[in-house]
């Protein structure tokens, strides 16, 4: 047998009892560490990941730790791993280039699962995608848009984009701007709006809703209405309450006018066919 040929008998002839003990100890430690790490992962991630994905991740993690253990123990086998390391390094570089985006998505997915900026069922906006989170997989996040369209967003994009989570906080505020006529008493309109809000169960008592005159506009006195609602109910409340406010204001004789401009005519318009006298002009203003 030549020197270049792998002679297993010769290799193991050099292995002593101390090496065998060291190998056993290292592998036992690796198994214990793998057990601890995978148990921890199971505890921490079981309610955050799909079961089959978690099992895959745990299996991968188990073998990574065991292989690290084998690698650490390899000097005690008296095996020259130089050639293996070179070959492994080349393969690792090739695989690394080929699976760059996959690894990036995987790592982003792990961080997303740990950080939890979004949860399944949350109403979110990521970049130009808005909708409800359907699933958070290890490589991608599935969003069902408000139109019911399935969108798969790679986790790398989720992780590096600005995420707006509309329901992360338990309550949120929304505003209305309501213009009433200059002829109306704004304080009466404010009282009516406050009464309508008070009747709504999900218009929160605290933080207190506020209604105030915000601006004296071109055609209207602009009132601003600010209401806090439970995050999961705000949209339904927002879409139903404005109609109630409008209907109640109108029922109480409060006018919500169209945009308008008052034209003052200084002199009565001449009858048709009559020559316009010098000095006739139109003006406008309030």
């Amino acid at each position, binding site marked *: 047998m030549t020197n270049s040929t792998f002679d297993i008998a010769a290799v193991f002839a050099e292995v002593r009892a101390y090496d065998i003990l060291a190998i056993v100890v290292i592998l036992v430690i690796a198994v214990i560490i793998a057990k601890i790490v995978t148990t921890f992962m199971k505890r921490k991630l079981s*309610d955050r990941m799909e079961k089959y994905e978690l099992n895959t991740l745990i299996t991968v993690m188990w073998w990574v730790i065991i292989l690290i253990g084998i690698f650490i123990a390899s000097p005690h086998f008296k095996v020259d791993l130089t050639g293996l390391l070179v070959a492994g390094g080349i393969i690792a570089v090739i695989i690394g280039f080929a699976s760059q985006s996959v690894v990036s998505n995987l790592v982003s997915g792990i961080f997303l699962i740990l950080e939890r900026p979004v949860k399944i069922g949350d109403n979110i906006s990521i970049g130009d995608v808005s909708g409800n989170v359907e699933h958070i997989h290890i490589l991608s996040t599935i969003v069902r848009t408000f139109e019911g369209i399935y969108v798969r967003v790679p986790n790398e994009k989720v992780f590096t984009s600005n995420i707006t989570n509309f329901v992360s906080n338990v*309550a*949120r505020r929304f505003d209305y701007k309501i213009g009433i006529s200059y002829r109306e008493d704004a304080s009466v309109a404010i009282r009516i709006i406050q009464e309508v809000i*008070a009747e709504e*169960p*999900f218009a929160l*008592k*605290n933080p207190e809703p506020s209604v105030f005159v915000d601006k004296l506009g071109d055609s209207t006195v602009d009132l601003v209405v600010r209401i*806090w609602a*439970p995050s999961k109910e705000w949209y339904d409340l927002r879409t139903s309450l404005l109609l109630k406010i409008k209907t109640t204001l109108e029922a109480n004789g409060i006018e919500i006018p169209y945009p308008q401009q008052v034209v003052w005519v200084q002199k009565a318009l001449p009858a048709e066919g009559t020559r316009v006298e010098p000095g006739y002009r139109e003006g406008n203003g309030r």
Partner: protein
Amino acid sequence: MIQFIVYGTYDYSCHITGDGISVDLERFARFLTYKRVCRGESVARTIASENGSIIINPVEPLNLPKEVTRYLEVHFNPIFVEPETTRQLYLTFPVEIGVFIQARGDNDLLDVFSLAKPKYSLYGPPDHGCVTRWHESNIYPEIPDTDPLREGVIDLTIVNGGRTWIEVSRAVFVNAGMTIWYGDYVVMSARMELFSNIVAETRILSTPEKPGMIRSLPAYSAKKVSVVEMVNQIPFYSAKKAFIPEKTGFLMEYGLGENIADD
């Protein structure tokens, strides 16, 4: 036979009416039809059952118009509590009426309605606080006269074990362990332990306010929500959670008065 609405157990052919509420249960072939009208809102259900009964009793006021929270917040005029004292007082809380169907040793919530207007609030900051069912109450030194279909009584014991005066004007209770009793009136017994001006722990006690009262079936456990969630979502912990009782107290950590502390 038409009966005036009271809390209790009824058989499958009953017509209960009163105070703007009507509950009818009629046999229809081999089915039952349940019809309820309350404040202009009507609900109809078809039930496949031969023998059983319905139970009408007060339930936690956390279900209407739909369930959004587990917390009841009672707001009252500020009370200054002397250091190292225990004081008993009475508050009111809104009542929702639960209709349960019961047969073969099992019961389930069929319907919930209420004569009390629901209103919700936020206890704590929007990011870490909680949405609460809000109720304004007077403070009573004795058990107040209440309409059992609209309001119940909270028999509240406030304990200030500290060495400073503490002002209290709100109490927040969690629905877990919220035991409601009924008889001449509807009542919950509660305890509020004050730790500082902004922190207290509240707990609904499972003892009746006086002997002879009947314990209400709770809507919370009838929905069996927690069990389903445990089994489907957290299998690793399901066994542990099933055997460890759920915590029934609530730590008020965002203030006891008008000013709510940010975290």
